[in-house]
């Protein structure tokens, strides 16, 4: 008879790791290294992601004993990783913000969309209409061009799919501020995708 093995929860592993069990720490690293790497790529760049990854797990190791289990382990780890990414980015020379304002939706004097329904819809099909590699490259570029506060909120809320309340805690702002920043980012990115598809066709 095959007895199904139950994987220990993150919280159980964290407690064991905090008590000095290195194998529990190693399991947490292998469980999360891929996701933290992806988050680091989204918040910084492919070049900086390895440093952020290392810093995150070193911080995790050092602070395991302060994990109180008040939030889920994953939420807590993502907070460490986000802070490591933001610190890393802050330490580097500030890149100029290439404005994405041009991609915001336009309205006529009556507050009606200036574009046609077909033009407004097209961004929804960007992944069908564009080459996958081109889209991947353009996506990385445009996310890096977002003003930092929009980028952080958008990456955590929309790309990592972290609940708004947790993103708010991570970034130290109100949930309404997160919603406003994510909204602004979505508007710019939606407009950017439209343009990308239209230039291509």
């Amino acid at each position, binding site marked *: 008879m095959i007895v199904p093995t139950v994987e220990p929860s993150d919280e159980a592993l964290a407690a064991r790791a905090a008590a000095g069990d*290195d194998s529990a720490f190693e399991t947490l690293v292998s469980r999360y290294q891929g996701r933290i790497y992806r988050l680091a790529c989204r918040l910084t760049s492919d070049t900086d992601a390895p440093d952020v990854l290392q810093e995150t797990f070193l911080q995790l190791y050092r602070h395991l004993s302060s994990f109180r289990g008040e939030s889920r382990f994953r939420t807590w780890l993502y907070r460490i990783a986000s802070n490591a990414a933001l610190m890393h980015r802050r330490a580097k020379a500030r890149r100029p913000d290439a404005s994405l304002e041009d991609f915001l939706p336009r309205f006529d004097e009556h507050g009606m969309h200036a574009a046609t*329904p077909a033009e407004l819809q097209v961004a929804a099909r*960007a992944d069908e209409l564009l080459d996958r590699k081109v889209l991947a490259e353009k996506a990385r570029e445009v996310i890096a061009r977002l003003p930092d506060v929009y980028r952080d909120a958008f990456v955590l809320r929309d790309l990592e799919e972290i609940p708004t309340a947790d993103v708010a805690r991570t970034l130290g702002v109100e949930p309404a501020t997160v919603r406003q920043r994510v909204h602004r980012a979505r508007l710019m990115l939606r407009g950017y995708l439209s343009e990308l598809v239209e230039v291509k066709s």
Partner: protein
Amino acid sequence: MTAVTCMSGVELLMDYLEGVLSSDVRATIEQHVAGCPRCTAFVASYCETPRILRRATETTIPADIETSLKAFLRARTSAFKQN
């Protein structure tokens, strides 16, 4: 509330999707979008944008980066001493 225009509706879209608007504001927005092909199209592309970019930025950790992470942690912690 006063009638929704495309512009004022767009400003409330995120709050609408996150379920933080009052029911009467929700209803006014739904009524506008249902009768506005432009907003219907806009909402569709707005809602798809996160999914498209999430998929486009999906990535897996390269083997060499995984190896150097372990080496880094081995040097600075008591973990990863085996292998």
